[in-house]
């Protein structure tokens, strides 16, 4: 079985971001970029499944500018067998990404598609679900505990983190799984593995190759910083609190 893992190159989580002065987006020039932490967890889980003997190959795929190859190399250094870079000059919204991944899945025929539950730059939490819908495959999102595969490799058991607690699903393969924080601790890419990764193949593909229509129905109008948090007020009595809630905040 082949596992396809989608990884996204995002602004590193420890970096302080800034909105561009023209308000068209976040300033990503000269900013440290890394693999989305949830994608790292997804890749780690795929690698563990391969190491357990249930999969033959782990393929990492990334969609974006040429620098995505660096992200793919990190993935290869962690243990992925090969990479696919789909060239794209602008950043795409989840539906477009989902369409691209669907085209790729039609070509590669994986038994499992792993994604991070969301990207830390847009927090959309949509791509995995859309891929599953486009493919007509079952989905298990927010996977948290162990993902166990049946011996015949025909279905997987996934624990999901939901509002009320944990939900255990059994999904028939092929399926889409999106990973949550507590699923695993991604491994470090060691120096020898980084060196070996240099010789692993990364295939370049274009949007024309995959015959994907990238026209989006959504247009980003403006990006602004959240309003500065006003300092709090200490009230002296319960009556004053009720008065403020009623007449100033209008929430009661």
């Amino acid at each position, binding site marked *: 079985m082949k596992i396809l893992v989608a990884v996204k190159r995002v602004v590193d989580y420890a970096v302080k971001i800034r909105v561009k002065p023209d308000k068209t987006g976040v300033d990503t020039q000269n900013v440290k970029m890394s693999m989305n932490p949830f994608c790292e967890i997804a890749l780690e889980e795929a690698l563990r499944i391969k190491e357990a003997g249930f999969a033959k190959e782990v393929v990492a795929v990334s969609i974006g500018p040429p620098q995505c190859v660096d992200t793919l190399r990190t993935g290869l250094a962690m243990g992925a067998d090969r990479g696919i870079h789909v060239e794209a000059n602008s950043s795409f919204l989840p539906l477009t990404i989902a369409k691209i991944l669907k085209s790729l899945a039609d070509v590669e025929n994986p038994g499992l598609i792993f994604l991070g539950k969301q990207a830390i730059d847009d927090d959309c939490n949509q791509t995995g679900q859309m891929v599953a819908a486009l493919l007509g495959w079952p989905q298990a999102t927010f996977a948290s505990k162990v993902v166990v595969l049946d011996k015949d490799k025909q279905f997987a058991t996934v624990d999901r983190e939901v509002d009320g607690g944990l939900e255990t699903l059994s999904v028939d393969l092929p399926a889409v799984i999106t990973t949550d924080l507590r699923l695993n601790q991604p491994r470090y890419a*060691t120096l020898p593995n980084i060196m070996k990764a240099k010789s692993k193949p990364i295939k370049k593909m274009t949007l024309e190759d995959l015959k994907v229509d990238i026209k989006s129905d959504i247009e980003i109008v403006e990006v602004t910083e959240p309003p500065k948090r006003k300092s709090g007020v200490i009230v002296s009595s319960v009556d004053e609190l009720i008065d403020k809630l009623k007449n100033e905040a209008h929430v009661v």
Partner: protein
Amino acid sequence: MKKMKALLLDHHRPLSFTIMHRFLLKLSSSSTNPLRNSKFQRLILPSLNLFASGSPPPPSANPYSADSFRKSRAFSSKSRALGVRCISSEAGREAIEYDVVIIGAGPAGLSAAIRLKQLCQEKNTDLSVCVVEKGAEVGGHVISGNVFEPLALDELLPHWRQEQAPIEVAASSDKFWFLTKDRAIPLPSPFDNKGNYIISLSQLVRWLGGKAEELGIEIYPGFSASEVLYNASDEVVGIATKDMGISKDGSKKETFQPGVDIKGRVTLFAEGCRGSLSEKIIKKYKLREEVNAQHQTYALGIKEVWEIDESKHNPGEVIHALGWPLDPKTYGGSFLYHMNDRQVALGLVVALNYKNPFLNPYEEFQKLKHHPAIKRILEGGTVLQYGARTLNEGGFQSIPYPVFPGGAIIGCSAGFLNVPKIKGTHTAMKSGMLAAEAAFGALHEGSNMNTYWDSLRGSWVWKELYAARNYRPAFEYGLIPGLAVSAMEHYVLKGKVPFTLKHGKADHEATDLARKCKPIEYPKPDGVLSFDVPTSLYRSNTNHDHDQPSHLRLKDPKIPEKVNLPEYGAPESRYCPARVYEYVEDEEGKPKLQINAQNCLHCKACDIKDPKQNIEWTVPEGGGGPAYSVM
């Protein structure tokens, strides 16, 4: 008779050599030519194996030959350590071999790597070169003023102007102010920055990294060199990277990965100021004693990059200032450089031999920003990044012998910063290039690495540092005498005096006892121009994996509460620009030192300034630390 006795006691060297040595010392002591100065006998004498280890050189003719390298077995310095960790170096660690291993992808390290590959191309050969860098990205730990003198870059990459180097803003004016609390008194500028450029060194290093990779140099960011590897003859054969995935209590996490031995026929240390492994090497091989060098002296630089109002922005403007907020007994100064994109670099440099343990360089910097002349420029702007790093001020007097068995030390780890010019990038790069040439000679032609020392002394680096040597030590006598000597040196003497002033006490010894000094009251930050440490720290993008042992080691864990706090008022809680050291009350209400290692900016101030030298800065897991991009 006494002289004969003294000569006979010199065990390490043959008697004849010692007599020659002393004779030549007497001969040359009166000469002012730096190349004949008494310290530097090796230019005249044949290169004997004078390394402090005392053991004879290996019988093979060329100690750097690939043959003798493969025959030597690597012993970890750890296996000699007193029970620090019980994992032996030979078991379970992979070893990767290169011709040259460089620790640190900064200006010196990358210049050395690039020069090596250039020499390979010239002589139609090849050498494998590996650069390890503890920052997550090349340039991530690089921070500097920086008014860049392109002298060394012109030699290294003469076509940089056509290759989109991030060097665009030419210095257009040199302003020099003496600050009092309310005024900025313009003085004639001692600087002449015509032909220099205002840059972000972090950006330049990033660009250099790209150039290096194009030449086939393997650069591995995110890997910290935590140990030096030695062979049976006590020669350096490389470094070992730090084990990753060890939890706070010392146990292995599920992600544990052992470090890797990276072995080189030549190892170059380019760790920057107060490099952790470089300091160990200097101590081990007694490299300062070799040439009668003085101790190194340091300053702490704290910097912010602001994006200011278009109307106030004047690209190319260079401002330096002395005086307020520092008192006349504390050496230091401020700078403000206008870069492009409405950005200005602003900082305060404080010499670490300050006496008052209550001095807080970070808070002094916050005060500086409220000075009317500075406030006027910053108002309406926002801070983009914050950072801090120590820098060398020892200059000529403190340069150690930079060659050791198995390699050399380059850049600020040795210490080539020109203090009156406040520039160290060009000399660091040149030192890297010269070491590369010596290494190439050693590997390709069988010559000795000592040629690095010789070529350093024959280069413009030496001339510059020799001419600049008396500026900083003159300030030991006070601000006015210091300024007077500076003026004399600058306009008249230019270093051509027959004496060399000495440095005062070592920085950590200079701190007075707390009871003798007045505590300093610092104003609260206003959140617009001045900020508290956590806010500033956030802007440095610094982070470390929380679950790892603290990389700041206390040689004696009781000293902070026994000595630092009562005797010196806990100076580490004041000079650390990242609030790593805090005294909190334990369960019994007694103050206890808490080390917030995760905040560390890797500036090394604690390693330098701790009064009992009890704090040892060691390298954390690779990839941690600040993420500077415009510093």
